[in-house]
C-alpha cells in the first residue's frame, strides 16, 4: 500500500514568547488543512512529536490535547517522544499506520516551546536525551557530547576548526531566503569561530538556536487519495529507523553515527534508491559536526570527506547535492519535537517546485533526523508527484 503526503505546513520557527504548544500546533494544522480537501473529521489518528512539554510547560498527555485542538477529538492519539527525533519518529509511525491498513488519514505533527525558560534550564531539559547518570551527572552537557565527537573527528581526519564553521555559514546563507527561518542573517567563518565558547571546539554559532515552533504533515493512503480525488504533494518512497547506545561512551564509534548508517541503509532499500538518486536533503545539523557526520552516514561522502560539502560548496543550494536548503536546524531553528516534521514540510515544497531555495528538477528528497547524540535516527525518502 502506498502512502502520500496530502499537505504539510509549519509555523515560523523562532521565539514565540506569547504563544503555547496548543496554539502553535493548531496554527500549523490550519495551514495544512488550508492546502488540502481533507477536513479534521477525516483524521483516523493524530500523532504528535514532542520532547520537553512535561519539563518546560508542565504539560503531558499531549497527543489527546492536540487531537482536540486540531478538531479531531475522537481520533486515536498519542504523543511520541524520542528526544530530537520525536518528529521523525512520529512521521514514521504515521506512515506505518497507513501502510498497515489500520488508518487512512493521519495527522503527523510536532511541536516544542523552548524559549520561555532560561538557557541553563533549556540545556538541562535537552540533557534528558543523554544518559543521566553516566553523562549529565558527570557534568557533560548536550553540546559537550557533540564537542567530544567533533574533537575526535578533527583528530582522526586532520580537519580544521574553520571546516566545521563552513557548515554554519552555508546554512545561515540558506536561511536568509526562508520566511519560516529563525535566523535570516549571513555569518562569516570568522564570526562562527569567534562566537561565544559553549564546549570546545563548539562555539555558539556551531549550534542550533533555542526555538519555538510547530509543523504538521497530513499523511493519507493512496486509495483514500484516489477515492476522494485528492491532489497530493509527495509520495513516501521509504523510511528507515535504528537505535544505538544512549551514552556516547557505550558506542562502537564516536566519530561516526552507526544508527544513522543503519537507518539510511534501510530507507534506501525500502525506497529502492541509492544515495546517488537523492536530489535534495534535509539533515540533522544540531551542531556543525552533526551535518558532516550525516553526509557520511547517508553515503553522500566517504568517511573523513564530509567537510568538503560546505567548504567546496557542493552542499549549497546550487551544489550537486543540496543539503539543508531550509537553513537547517542551525539557520531555520530547532523546536525539537517539530524538527523532523519540519524537514518533511521543507522537502515537500522542494518536490512541488515552490521552495524559496528551489533546487532544479528535485524529484527524490531525503530527511535525516537524529535523537540525542545519535542513539536514535530516522531517514525518510520522498518522491515528487
Amino acid at each position, binding site marked *: 500500500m502506498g502512502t502520500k503526503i496530502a499537505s504539510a505546513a509549519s509555523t515560523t520557527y523562532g521565539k514565540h514568547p506569547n504563544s503555547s504548544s496548543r496554539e502553535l500546533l493548531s496554527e500549523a494544522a490550519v495551514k495544512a488543512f488550508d492546502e488540502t480537501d481533507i477536513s479534521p473529521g477525516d483524521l483516523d489518528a493524530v500523532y504528535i512529536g514532542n520532547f520537553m512539554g512535561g519539563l518546560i510547560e508542565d504539560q503531558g498527555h499531549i497527543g489527546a490535547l492536540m487531537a482536540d485542538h486540531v478538531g479531531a477529538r475522537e481520533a486515536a492519539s498519542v504523543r511520541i517522544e524520542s528526544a530530537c527525533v520525536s518528529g521523525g519518529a512520529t512521521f514514521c509511525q504515521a506512515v506505518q499506520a497507513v501502510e498497515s491498513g489500520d488508518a487512512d488519514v493521519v495527522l503527523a505533527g510536532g511541536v516544542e516551546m523552548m524559549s520561555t525558560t532560561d538557557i541553563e534550564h533549556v*540545556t538541562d531539559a535537552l*540533557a534528558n536525551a543523554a544518559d543521566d547518570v553516566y553523562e549529565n*551527572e558527570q*557534568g557533560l552537557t548536550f553540546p559537550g557530547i557533540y564537542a*567530544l565527537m567533533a574533537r*575526535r573527528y578533527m583528530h582522526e581526519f586532520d580537519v580544521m576548526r574553520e571546516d566545521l564553521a563552513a557548515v554554519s555559514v552555508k546554512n545561515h546563507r540558506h536561511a536568509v531566503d526562508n520566511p519560516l527561518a529563525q535566523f535570516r542573517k549571513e555569518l562569516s567563518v570568522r564570526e562562527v569561530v569567534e562566537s561565544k565558547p559553549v564546549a570546545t571546539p563548539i562555539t555558539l554559532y556551531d549550534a542550533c538556536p533555542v526555538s519555538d515552533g510547530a509543523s504538521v504533515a497530513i499523511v493519507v493512503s493512496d486509495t483514500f487519495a484516489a477515492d476522494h480525488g485528492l491532489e497530493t504533494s509527495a509520495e513516501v518512497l521509504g523510511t528507515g529507523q535504528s537505535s544505538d547506545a544512549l551514552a556516547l561512551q*557505550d558506542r562502537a564509534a564516536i566519530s561516526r553515527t552507526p544508527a544513522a548508517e543503519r537507518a539510511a541503509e534501510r530507507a534506501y532499500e525500502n525506497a529502492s534508491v541509492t544515495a546517488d538518486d537523492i536530489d535534495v536533503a534535509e539533515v540533522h545539523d544540531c551542531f556543525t559536526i552533526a551535518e558532516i557526520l550525516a553526509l557520511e552516514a547517508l553515503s553522500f561522502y566517504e568517511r573523513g570527506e564530509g567537510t568538503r560539502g560546505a567548504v567546496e560548496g557542493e552542499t549549497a543550494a546550487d551544489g550537486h547535492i543540496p543539503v539543508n536548503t531550509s537553513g537547517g536546524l542551525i539557520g531555520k531553528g530547532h523546536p525539537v519535537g517539530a524538527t523532523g516534521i519540519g524537514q518533511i514540510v521543507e522537502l515537500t515544497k522542494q518536490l512541488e517546485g515552490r521552495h524559496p531555495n528551489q533546487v532544479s528538477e528535485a524529484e527524490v528528497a531525503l530527511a535525516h533526523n537524529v535523537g540525542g547524540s545519535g542513539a536514535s535516527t530516522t531517514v525518510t525518502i520522498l518522491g515528487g508527484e
Partner: protein
Amino acid sequence: MPAWFDAFTDAIASGDQQYLVCETCGHGTLPPRQLCPACGSTELTQEPLSERGEILSFTEISVTIPKFHGETPYTVVLAELDEGVSLTGQLRDATPDDIAIGDKVVLGTEPHDNETALITFQQAED
C-alpha cells in the same frame, strides 16, 4: 543517584572497581546490565577493571546545566580503559591545554556537593 552508581563509585574509591564481561561473547560493559548489549546473553560476570586508560576525546564546558552552575569552565574527558570500556569524567589537576587525545589517564572519583559522586581523570605520571 541510584544505588548501583553509588556502589560503582564506592568501588572506584576503594581501588577495586569492576566491570561486566559477557561469558558468551566476551563483550565488556558497565553496570548495571542484565543482558549483554552485543549478544543478548544473560551470563554476565564481574571482573576487575583497570584504573588506567587513554583519552579518546575531551571538551572544555562553558555553558552548563543548573547542577554545575558556577563551576565553568571545566573539562570533561572520555577515556577508554585498558579493558576496552569507556567512561566519561572530569579532568583534575590539569587544563585542556595540558592534554591531548591518546594521553594516558588514571580513573578516580570524588564527591560533588557532598551528595553525589563524580568520575574523575588525572594525567598518568609515567
